[in-house]
């Protein structure tokens, strides 16, 4: 098990290479330089480019400045390291547990929610793969009755993974499907029910009410609902916070799954979501493969974001983009 975890970590590190680039650039620029205002501006811009957002960015920059002051650090070289510790500490402040609730000999229901196109169905498939590997039995509930052929997409995964799919009519009641799935799972002693819901913008009141109903219906069977996972696209900007807030308010999110972190997206919105909402990130998607969904490790995440390897720290600045003062 520890070996696997380690493998997962190195994979994050590998996949996050791209994410590290801006920080790596920053490192390059900070070599052999005293700390001055430009260094702080640099730090700020780097964080903003990572989608950390204004509030989180100023909080982190302030934190790093305070560290530098108390520790008497004068070399800009040391700043990335300070930032790493600051991020790590900030993530460590989230009180909630990052592990997923999975109880042997009992049916667990995990509800997957999120805006359109965040990757709920794919995440369901990846979660199922992991659960099956761990020896759990899995059932899919295709509660996305809105998007054309969404159930077919899940069914295709079901075929591949040998997981049964409970589905209803297109345009049917997602609550009914969730209910049927829970009943079926209980009758057959299935360990895990993954409820894939329709993507919905968090601003659509009716659709959020529908989701709330799905949750209520699942809760009619006491004790089964163990996770409500918000699936969030890593390319999302500041709106991610708004999404997380609404989903948390309306259906009670237990954790975030940050998907598509294998691009150049930095996933900085995670920092804002954790610090402002206290909702923990539990998993990150770092690739297309079914096993590319790995546990979120704050320390590793902070390190991967801030640390640059040498070859990358030499990446030159793109000309003409950074030289304009605001």
């Amino acid at each position: 098990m520890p070996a696997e975890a380690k493998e997962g970590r190195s994979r994050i590190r590998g996949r996050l290479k791209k994410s590290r680039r801006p920080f790596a650039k920053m490192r390059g620029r900070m070599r052999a330089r005293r700390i001055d205002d430009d260094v702080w501006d640099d730090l700020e811009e780097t964080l903003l480019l990572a989608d950390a957002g204004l509030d989180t960015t100023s909080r982190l920059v302030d934190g790093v400045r305070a560290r530098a002051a108390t520790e008497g650090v004068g070399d800009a070289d040391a700043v990335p390291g300070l930032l790493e510790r600051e991020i790590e500490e900030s993530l460590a402040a989230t009180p909630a547990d990052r592990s997923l609730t999975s109880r042997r000999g009992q049916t667990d229901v995990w509800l997957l929610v999120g805006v359109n196109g965040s990757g709920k169905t794919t995440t369901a498939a990846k979660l199922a793969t992991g659960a099956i590997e761990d020896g759990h039995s899995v059932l899919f509930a295709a509660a996305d009755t809105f998007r054309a052929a969404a159930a077919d997409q899940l069914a295709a995964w079901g075929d591949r993974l040998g997981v049964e799919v409970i589905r209803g009519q297109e345009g049917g009641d997602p609550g009914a499907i969730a209910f049927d799935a829970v009943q079926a799972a209980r009758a057959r002693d299935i360990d895990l029910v993954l409820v894939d819901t329709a993507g919905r913008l968090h601003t659509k009141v009716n659709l959020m009410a529908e989701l709330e109903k799905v949750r209520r219906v699942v809760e009619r069977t006491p004790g089964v609902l163990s996770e409500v996972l918000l699936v969030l696209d890593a390319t999302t900007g500041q709106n991610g916070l708004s999404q997380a807030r609404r989903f948390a308010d309306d259906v009670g999110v237990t954790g975030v799954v940050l998907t598509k972190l294998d691009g150049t997206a930095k996933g900085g919105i995670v920092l804002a979501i954790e610090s402002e909402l206290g909702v923990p990130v539990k998993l990150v998607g770092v690739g297309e493969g079914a096993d590319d969904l790995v546990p979120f490790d704050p320390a590793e995440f902070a390190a991967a974001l801030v640390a640059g390897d040498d070859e990358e720290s030499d990446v030159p600045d793109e000309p003409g983009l950074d030289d304009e003062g605001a």
Partner: protein
Amino acid sequence: MFDTLSDRFDGIFKRLRTRGRLTPTDVDEVAREIRLALLEADVNVKVVKQFIARVKERATGAEIAKSLNPGQQVIKIVHEELVATLGGASGKLATASKPPTIIVLAGLQGSGKTTAAAKLTRLLEHDQGKQVLLVGADLQRPAAVEQLRVLGEQIGVPVFSEPTDPVAVARAGVQEAERLGRTTVVIDTAGRLQVDDELMEELAHLTDAVQPHDVLLVVDAMTGQEAVNVAESFAEAVELTGIVLTKLDGDARGGAALSVKEVTGLPVLFAGIGEKVADFEPFHPDRMASRILGMGDVLTLIEKAEAAFDAEEAAEAQERLLEGRFTLDDFLEQMRQMRKMGPLSSIVGMLPGMPKELRQAEIDDNELGRVEAIICSMTPAERQDPSIINGSRRARIARGSGTTTPQVNALLKQFKMVQQMMRSLTKPGKRGKKGRRAVALPPGMTPEDLAAMPGLPGAGMGGGVPGMPGLPPVR
């Protein structure tokens, strides 16, 4: 904390309005605020820098000195720069001299390509009389082709695909269109990360094979700083011709549009604005700029209003309104017209200067039904002159409409408020001084905003979104 760019600008401009001429310090402060606002809206940091530099340069120049109202001047400059960045004029799709015209949609996973393909197809068929063949070249995502087929069926358009490879499907799709005599081919491709060299190459092969007239990059309006990388990489791999912005119906301010436009120079052609296939419209850079500026999507609203309105009736109402003869009948009529435009909740989001809590408030469209019932239970004389409505008339109206006397009272009070607001509106330069009141919202805003519209943006700029203070916050 400000939630949206719009709120942010509201804040800035409110401050500016209270001052005289702009000092260089003011300009700096405004620039700072605009920078923060744009960053909050997810505009790329580098784009923000360029934008701010331009605004500063213009604002500190002679132009400011010449203006009568410095606040107006800055709004104008910022707005103009936003419009310039977003594209100036609206772009257009190409039309092949020899049909079929071929359009390819590309983008990241989950940006909304398949949905956009169907929506674009519907728009081309419905509004432009094109005959489209939808081609499903996304063979990667399970059931993506099935999704396209279902959507094609919904809009009555043939869908072509085969389980070969994307390039072959695209090529065969174009041949199929020629065979069927379709004028346009819309090709949906698989979502791909811009760093996935293999898939990016495949996309390049596909466009090489079919030589599309348009290659549209589909961008999620909620995208953050990453928008720039995505746009740059796709533009490098294939010859993009335009952008489709999706999921604009959420509360994202769509700073990505600004970023993408600035780095690629490509026009944003279309915007996805809702769940339904029909919720797709040409993108208007000037309107997006207005929305960002906090003037709301007033222009879109006007257009929608115009389409829904009986022009003559509207003109009459407008005239009566200007003369201060606005009656409950007009109120009812405008409310009905307003409802034609869609659920109030979506319209409120477009309105300028709306307090944030109002924009996010849930609006009960049933309330409108209640108001309608109350007004319909009045006699014509009562509707003309509500002041004759005494206690016994109120009781009768309540009975007739299945409401209660307090509800009737609330409506009358609200109507009176609206009337007063209208009067203050017709006097330019004067702002409604009314405080916010806790009255049910929806009907109240109706005529007021519609009335305000024709005067905008002029009125909005001058008086500073007049009348809005009179609007009661909900919850």
